[in-house]
C-alpha cells in the first residue's frame, strides 16, 4: 500500500513493570524510528507525562502499584493528556479484559507475547490516526472562526444593502419630488396669476375679493411647501468649515434650553468628550439637524423629562447622541421615519428627519436611531473627525 511508504515516527512512552519487556519494546520501537521513554510502574508513568507529552502510550495492565486500567482512567480524566492514544499490552487475553481496556479509554489492545511488527504497525496506525484527529480539530476551529466571520460579513452586508436601498430610494424620491415641484409651479402660477388679475379689476369687492385673496394666499403657501420639499430633495451643501462640535451644539441648545425648561419641564444633561476635536461641516445645516433632533426629543416627552447629550470619539468617528426619556417609537414608526412626508403629528410637516438624514449623509456620516416604547429614543449622529489642514 502507498501508506506504508510513509514513515510515521513519534515519541512513545512505554509502561511495564518488567525490565525485559521494556527493553524489548524499546528496541522494537527504536528500530521503527520512534523515540522512546519508559516508566516501570503506574505512578511513574503518571509522573513522566507531567514533563514530557508523548504521541502514544504503550501501557501494561498487570502492575503492582496502580494497574494499567487505573492509569488509563486517570490519563483520560486529565484534559491535558486525555487525547494521547493508549494501547494496552497485556498477557490477559480474555475478551473481558480487552473490553475493559476499551471501556477505560484505550484505543487498542495487544496480547503478550506480541509480534514486534504488529506492535509497530498498530503504534504507527494510532499515531497517524491521532495526528489526523488533531488536524481535524484545528480545521474545525478554523472553520468555526471562518463561519463566525462569514456570519458577521453577512450581517454587515445585509445592513449595508439596507442602507443602500434606503439611500437609493431616497435619491430617486428626491429626483421625483424635484420634478413634481417644478411641474406644479406652472399651474400654481396660473391659478395665482389669474386670481391676482381678477383682484386688479375694480368690480371685484367683498365676498369675491376675500375668496380670491384666499386663492392667492394658498398658492403662496403651496409655494412654501414646494420650497421646503425641494430643500429635502437636494440639500445644498454650503461652505464647509472646521467646527468645534461642542460649541456648535451649545449654540443650538442655548436657543432652546430656557424654553424647554419653562414650557416643557425638560432638562438637558451634557456629557461632552474631553478630547479636543473638530468636524468639517456646513455648520448651519448640521445645526439644523441638532435642532430637529432636540425638537423631536421634546415632542416625545409631553410630561417633561431629560435630554442627555453625549459626544465621544471612536476611532476616527465622532458620535453625538441625543437621548430622551420620552415615549419611544414602535418598529413601524422606526421603519418609516425617514420617508418624506411621514409624520406622527397631526400638523407635522413630516420632512424633518428626511432632511436630517440627507444632510448627515451628505457629510459622509450616519444618522441612527435606537428606541424602546415607553423608555425613550436615542438619536446618534456619527461624523468623521476632521484632520488638521494647513490654513
Amino acid at each position, binding site marked *: 500500500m502507498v501508506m506504508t511508504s510513509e514513515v510515521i515516527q513519534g515519541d512513545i512512552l512505554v509502561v511495564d513493570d518488567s525490565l525485559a519487556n521494556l527493553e524489548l519494546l524499546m528496541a522494537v520501537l527504536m528500530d521503527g524510528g520512534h523515540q522512546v521513554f519508559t516508566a516501570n510502574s503506574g505512578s511513574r508513568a503518571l509522573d513522566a507525562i507531567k514533563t514530557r507529552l508523548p504521541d502514544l502510550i504503550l501501557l501494561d495492565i498487570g502492575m503492582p502499584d496502580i494497574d494499567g486500567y487505573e492509569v488509563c482512567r486517570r490519563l483520560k480524566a486529565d484534559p491535558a493528556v486525555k487525547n494521547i492514544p493508549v494501547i494496552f499490552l497485556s498477557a490477559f487475553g480474555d475478551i473481558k479484559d480487552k473490553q475493559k481496556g476499551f471501556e477505560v479509554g484505550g484505543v487498542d489492545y495487544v496480547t503478550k507475547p506480541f509480534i514486534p511488527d504488529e506492535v509497530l504497525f498498530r503504534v504507527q496506525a494510532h499515531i497517524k490516526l491521532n495526528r489526523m484527529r488533531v488536524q481535524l480539530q484545528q480545521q474545525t476551529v478554523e472553520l468555526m472562526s471562518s463561519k463566525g466571520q462569514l456570519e458577521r460579513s453577512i450581517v454587515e452586508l445585509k445592513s449595508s444593502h439596507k442602507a443602500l436601498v434606503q439611500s437609493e430610494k431616497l435619491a430617486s424620491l428626491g429626483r421625483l419630488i424635484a420634478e413634481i415641484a417644478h411641474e406644479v409651479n406652472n399651474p400654481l402660477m396660473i391659478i395665482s*396669476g389669474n386670481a391676482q*388679475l381678477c383682484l386688479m379689476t375694480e368690480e371685484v369687492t367683498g365676498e369675491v375679493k376675500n375668496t380670491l385673496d384666499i386663492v392667492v394666499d394658498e398658492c403662496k403657501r403651496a409655494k412654501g411647501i414646494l420650497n421646503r420639499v425641494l430643500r429635502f430633495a437636494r440639500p445644498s451643501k454650503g461652505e464647509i468649515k472646521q467646527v468645534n462640535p461642542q460649541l456648535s451644539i451649545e449654540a443650538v441648545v442655548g436657543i432652546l434650553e430656557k424654553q424647554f425648561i419653562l414650557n416643557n419641564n425638560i432638562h438637558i444633561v451634557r456629557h461632552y468628550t474631553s478630547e479636543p476635536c473638530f468636524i468639517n461641516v456646513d455648520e448651519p445645516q448640521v445645526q439644523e439637524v441638532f435642532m430637529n433632533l432636540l425638537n423631536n426629543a421634546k415632542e416625545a416627552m409631553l410630561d417633561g423629562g431629560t435630554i442627555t447629550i453625549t459626544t465621544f470619539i471612536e476611532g476616527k468617528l465622532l458620535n453625538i447622541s441625543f437621548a430622551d426619556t420620552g415615549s419611544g417609537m414602535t418598529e413601524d414608526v422606526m421603519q418609516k421615519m425617514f420617508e418624506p412626508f411621514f409624520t406622527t403629528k397631526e400638523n407635522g410637516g413630516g420632512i424633518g428627519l428626511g432632511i436630517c438624514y440627507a444632510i448627515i449623509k451628505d457629510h459622509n456620516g450616519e444618522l441612527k436611531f435606537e428606541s424602546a416604547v415607553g423608555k425613550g429614543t436615542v438619536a446618534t449622529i456619527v461624523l468623521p473627525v476632521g484632520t488638521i489642514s494647513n490654513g
Partner: protein
Amino acid sequence: MAKILVVDDEEMIRKILVRVLMKAGYEVIQASGGAEAIEVLKSGVHLDMMVTDMKMPTVTGIDVLKAKKDLNDLTPVIILTGVLNEQQDYTELNRLGLGAQDILYKPIDLLLFLDAVKNKLV
C-alpha cells in the same frame, strides 16, 4: 411706451403676464419658446426689456441668454422661474456672464412683478 418681450412656453402664463403688463401700459411681444425668443432678438426689433422663463423644452432660458449675449444685446432681463435654489441660480448665471437684472420665483406676486419691471427699465 416701453416694449417688453415675454418668453414662456406655457400659454396661460404668457396670457397673465401680457394682460398685467398691458394693463400697466406696456407694449408686449410674446414668444412661446426659446427659439422664437432668439428670432425676435435677432430681428433687431427694439426692446426695452425681456421677461423669460428658464425651464423650457428644446431651447431653454439659459440658451436664450447666451444667444442674447452673443448678439451683444444689452436689454435688461427679468427671469421668472420655478422653485430653484436661489444662490445656485445666481452663481450659475454670473459664472456664465449672463447675470439678469432680477429673478422672480413663480408663482409671482403680480404687483411686485410690475414694480420690478418699472425699476429695471433703463
